[in-house]
């Protein structure tokens, strides 16, 4: 394998008695769109801040292009950050904000102008150069922050929940925009988010964080379709867990299995077709959400299965609370977890 653009080697960060990042090792290749996904407090932002140089790891190493930068201050690292609150300088106009990094490095005025123009063009804000940050909308500020980082042509761009403050529609637009920009400039993006949909949509690979450790690293498809742990299975999308006892009764094997709601349907035939499993139960919850209806069924075998039923036909009967129903799923859609949590078998090598 070629030298990774960014590598963390058994990195640990403690704040007093709290361990924010616990022996994390990960390698990120050049040109990747790599997401750090996890709930708040899972250590993903601390990890990003260590790569940026704002936090010093308690132990372990951070490498950029194979070079140990653990103790390098942020201003010496060829890495730029897009902050969650954008952190635009309020007393400078958009152009001055974008030029700041170049000005600090002593780039000549004409070249500075030119590159700032190009960066503003990339984020489609050419006409806004003379505006002050407080005269821009949230989405525009976000793009200025992006341009201000990109203009320096860093090896790696770090994005700390950059879309967190935007409303849903703008968020989706900016996701497309981000993906386009990343393709155009070809810089490695490391993207912190707690939004699993965002991570799956944008990333070439995702690292799922929980309690300071990485639970799983993989492509969005691997993360979603073959979650390694129960945490990943439940955090990325909704899953139903069929415990060992229920699995023994229902499937004839005593291994815990998990199942995605969109793979569960209402049984139409009286007996299970080839390769399918049928489970009778009682409807415990019904949630209508526009494009589908989510039904939770307490099956008699002793598990709670969630079924995602598409709202396709008008007048199609949707089960009501307390109804007796039979749900059905393909045996091949059952997923097996490698382990319950990463804490039994950590990914990072032990120091």
């Amino acid at each position: 394998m070629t030298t990774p653009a960014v590598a963390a080697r058994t990195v640990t960060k403690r704040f007093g008695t709290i361990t924010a990042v616990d022996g994390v090792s990960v390698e990120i290749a050049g040109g990747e769109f790599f997401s750090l996904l996890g709930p708040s407090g899972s250590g993903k932002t601390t990890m990003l801040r260590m790569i940026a140089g704002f936090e010093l790891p308690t132990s372990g190493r951070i490498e950029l292009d194979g070079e140990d930068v653990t103790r390098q201050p942020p201003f010496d690292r060829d890495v730029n950050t897009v902050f969650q609150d954008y952190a635009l300088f309020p007393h400078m106009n958009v152009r001055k904000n974008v030029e700041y990094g170049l000005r600090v490095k002593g780039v000549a005025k004409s070249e500075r102008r030119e590159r700032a123009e190009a960066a503003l063009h990339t984020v489609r804000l050419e006409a806004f150069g003379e505006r002050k940050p407080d005269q821009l909308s949230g989405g525009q500020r976000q793009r200025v922050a992006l341009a201000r980082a990109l203009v320096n042509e860093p090896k790696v761009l770090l994005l700390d929940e950059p879309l967190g403050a935007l409303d849903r529609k703008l968020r989706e637009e900016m996701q497309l925009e981000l993906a386009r920009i990343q393709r155009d400039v070809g810089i490695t993006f490391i993207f912190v988010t707690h939004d699993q949909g965002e991570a799956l949509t944008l990333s070439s690979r995702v690292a799922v964080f929980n309690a300071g450790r990485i639970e799983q690293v993989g492509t969005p498809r691997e993360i979603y379709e073959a979650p390694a742990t129960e945490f990943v299975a439940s955090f990325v999308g909704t899953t139903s867990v069929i415990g060992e006892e229920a699995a023994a009764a229902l499937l004839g094997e005593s291994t815990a299995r998990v199942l995605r709601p969109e793979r569960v349907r209402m049984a139409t035939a009286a007996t299970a077709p080839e390769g399918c499993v049928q489970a009778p139960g009682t409807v415990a919850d019904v949630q209508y959400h526009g494009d589908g209806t989510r039904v939770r069924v307490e099956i008699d075998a002793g598990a709670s299965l969630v079924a995602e039923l598409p709202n396709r036909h008008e007048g199609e009967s949707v089960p009501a609370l307390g109804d007796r129903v039979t749900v059905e799923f393909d045996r091949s859609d059952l997923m097996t977890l490698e382990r319950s949590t990463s804490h039994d078998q950590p990914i990072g090598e032990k120091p």
Partner: protein
Amino acid sequence: MTEPSAPQVHGVRRRVARFFARHPRAALGAQLSAPGGWLLIIYIGSLAALILTSLFRLVDDPTGLVTKLDTSIGFGNFDRVISQPVYRAVALRTLGAAATVTVIDAVIALPLAFYMGKVASQRARRMLVVAVTLPLWAGYLVKGYAWRALLDPGGGAFQEVFGHSLGFGYASSIVVLAYLWFPFMVIPLYAGFDRLPDSLLEASTDLGAKAGRTFVSVVVPQIVPSLVAGSIFTFSLTLGDFYMNRIVGGTTEFIGNIVYRQFSVDLPFAAAYAVIPIVIMVGLLLAVRRTGALDEL
């Protein structure tokens, strides 16, 4: 009805409430009448009286034994203030003291306020705020005489311990006034630094700027409004002070000392001389406003 008076009271209150609800301008006027009246009569009124008095003059009775107030308007007092070198010198000395005190306070307060607002732990912050404001709890005179005891060249603490003292004079006045008004500089600066988001400093560092560059390009522009606010306090407080001179200033006189002395001798002249700090402050505020620093206060 069991209680005939109640609906009556209710009715009157209701009518009043309805009147104000329909006439929002009248409601606003009623609300502002008390503070507005206070501002107009006590504040503007006294200022107007001061300026009017400064335009009068004292004339000797033909007997030469009594002086009378001549209430015809004239600028004779201001002529004296400007043309007599003594008065000009005192005005300039006061101005110099105000500027020096402001600079001393700013230079000491900037790093301290930065530490308080950006570096110190929450606990240390609270303790520092208390420590900085603690002297405000002691009386002006107490602090003045405490400094007198420190500075006394004939056996004061500095003389005894270091073998040298500033003694009583202009320099001592400046030192003591800088001490007195220090909290008024630190607190606005601390508030300014506290408001300054960490992410701005991080963004600057992230974009390649070292500490000095970040301070000049990001911190200072953000902190200017706080610095201006603090400076207005230290400057105007020094400009108006006169008693600290009498305690530690030796024979040094500020504008206030002249006003105080002339007050009982020549009231119109004292009034004219008191107009000088007002003019200076108005001029200063206008100049500051031009820079735009007041917009963000």
